[in-house]
């Protein structure tokens, strides 16, 4: 009887009636919302009551000492790890905990891993082509044509990542920094709403770092992408961050502008060490 009654309820929208691929709802502001998330591995609490809100179009840097739970947090958002408790919402419509990795990716959450992996035998252009959001089944892929629209989209991303000149060369000859940009470009081809970027400037030269900072700040914006960056390099974080979140032992220790955060005595203690001079390094 109860089942029949609940089916007859008109004020309720059943979860399974909402298509997974429906666009993300950001009318209420945040694009990503984590509440009281905890996860432990063999008794070790990697994430402990984590609360985090990322606004639509925001550029957010997340810093924290090793083992603070940065990578685990990324794993939870992308569906690789399931939290023990808590809620993770993408916009106000999608409960990420009910979706698997490919579904989350197709919703528009792109993740860039630390080590760049591009297809070295293919050209830069072809790398972007393969990354593009498209029907990825066999026959559509076999008969796919490079339409003018697709071409324009690829050219647009090529210009954004600054590899227009190198587009027909194999990706294998790119420098480390250029490969990182190509990876970011491959993420952009999927038209993500939220970009998760893990240590984008590790191993980069000073100029490459500057170029990456420009690229990432240019990406974030209302109606464009929201960008979450996990980074160790404090100089880099200082140069791009509007808001910084400091993680420590699986929860948020401090949040705010770089100046505010770096003057917080607790942050100085756990992250920058007792000696404030290290901060500059």
């Amino acid at each position, binding site marked *: 009887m109860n089942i029949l009654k609940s089916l007859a309820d008109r004020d309720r929208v059943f979860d399974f009636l909402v298509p997974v691929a429906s666009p993300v709802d950001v009318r209420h502001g945040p694009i990503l919302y984590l509440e009281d998330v905890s996860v432990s591995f063999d008794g070790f609490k990697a994430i402990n009551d984590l609360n985090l809100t990322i606004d639509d179009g925001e550029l957010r840097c997340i810093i924290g000492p090793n083992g603070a739970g940065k990578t685990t947090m990324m794993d939870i958002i992308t569906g690789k790890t399931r939290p023990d408790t808590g809620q993770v919402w993408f916009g106000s419509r999608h409960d990420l905990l009910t979706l698997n990795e490919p579904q989350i990716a197709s919703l528009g959450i792109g993740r860039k891993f630390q080590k760049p992996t591009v297809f070295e035998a293919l050209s830069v252009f072809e790398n972007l082509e*393969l990354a593009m959001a498209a029907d990825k*089944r066999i026959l559509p892929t076999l008969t796919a044509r*490079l339409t003018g629209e697709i071409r324009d989209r690829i050219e647009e991303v090529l210009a954004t990542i600054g590899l227009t000149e190198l587009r027909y060369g194999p990706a294998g000859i790119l420098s480390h920094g250029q490969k990182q940009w190509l990876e970011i470009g*491959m993420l952009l081809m999927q038209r993500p709403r939220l970009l998760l970027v893990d240590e984008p400037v590790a191993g980069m030269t000073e100029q490459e770092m500057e170029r990456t900072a420009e690229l990432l700040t240019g990406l974030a914006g209302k109606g464009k992408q929201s960008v979450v960056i996990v980074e160790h390099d404090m100089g880099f974080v200082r140069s791009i961050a509007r808001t910084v979140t400091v993680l420590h032992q699986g929860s948020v220790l401090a949040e705010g502008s770089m100046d505010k955060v770096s003057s917080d005595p607790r942050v100085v203690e756990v992250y920058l060490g007792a000696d404030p001079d290290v901060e500059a390094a």
Partner: protein
Amino acid sequence: MWLTRPLRERSTQLFLGILLAALALVTLLNLTLPAAHPLHVSTYTVTLLGKYLSYALLAVAVDLVWGYLGILSLGHGAFFALGGYAMGMYLMRQIGDRGTYGDPVLPDFMVFLNWDSLPWYWLGFDMPWFAFLMVLLAPGLLALVFGFLAFRSRVTGVYLSIITQAMTFALMLAFFRNEMGFGGNNGLTDFKELLGFDLRSDATRLGLFIATGIALALGYVVCRAIVASKLGRVSVACRDAEARTRFLGYRVERFQLFVFVVSAMLAGVAGALYVPQVGIINPSEFSPIFSIEVVLWVALGGRATLYGAVIGALLVNYAKTVFTGVMPDAWLFALGGLFVLVTVFLPKGIAGLLDLRIKRRSATSDSTPATGEATA
């Protein structure tokens, strides 16, 4: 259409041009010149060339999976042999009552084994359309089942090579058994005619040679079309960074399965054209050594080029014919030596040498992007 796309590529046009010109030339030299003329191509040679061309098609099939998908199949001889057996069964049924024992339905070996009726899996092979369908379906189905199990469990690299080798070896042992109903050790032979044409006549032999050449041309175009499509680029992506491709949202195992099945079918067609030209099919075609030899042809010719596979198959088999005629014992040493030389001095095979030439020449002229051709 994606299938005709390669016809607009310079390299494919060149390949097809050379192949068709060679076919026409051999036909002309065979038909018009008197037998005593020094340039006359004898029917024996024509049949030999036809055999090489069927090997070349097999090599193209292997190059498709090895060169572009990174799957080193050491069992493609099995697909070749299955296609050959399907054709052989049809040819056996065509013998009718002209066999030694004169039985109107049963092939000679079944009469000899005292069988009184055809096994169920021989039914239908008297109809050419059914037999030719089986040429594609039998290898395709084996590849589908085998590939589904292997790729789903993410078996790749050396392990996959080893199980493909085991697959062809197991099939060889099975086909050796008389109870299997495929003629056991002796296989199928004593063929009379194909589609009503006498297999011993010169005209039929020339026709088979031309048919094999056309099959090679078509097979090449199909492979080239796959390679030049977006699916081909996904294959290369699977070859070089499988996990990354999966992360982009492609179901890697399905792409591997698709290309593997297409390749197996091409190998089956090659086998079906091989059998009427050599006049016999027996379990030795399943032998692991043969499959490894095919991989050697591709390696010598140049992997991941398709035309390299053709060059390799033709060259090695020509050398084999010459060597086994002059000094039969030295052939395996010569093959081994050739392989060592090519790996040391020409890591990209003979095609690598050609590529270098072309690149050097076009380096000065304006370089058109490869992807530009795929646009239209």
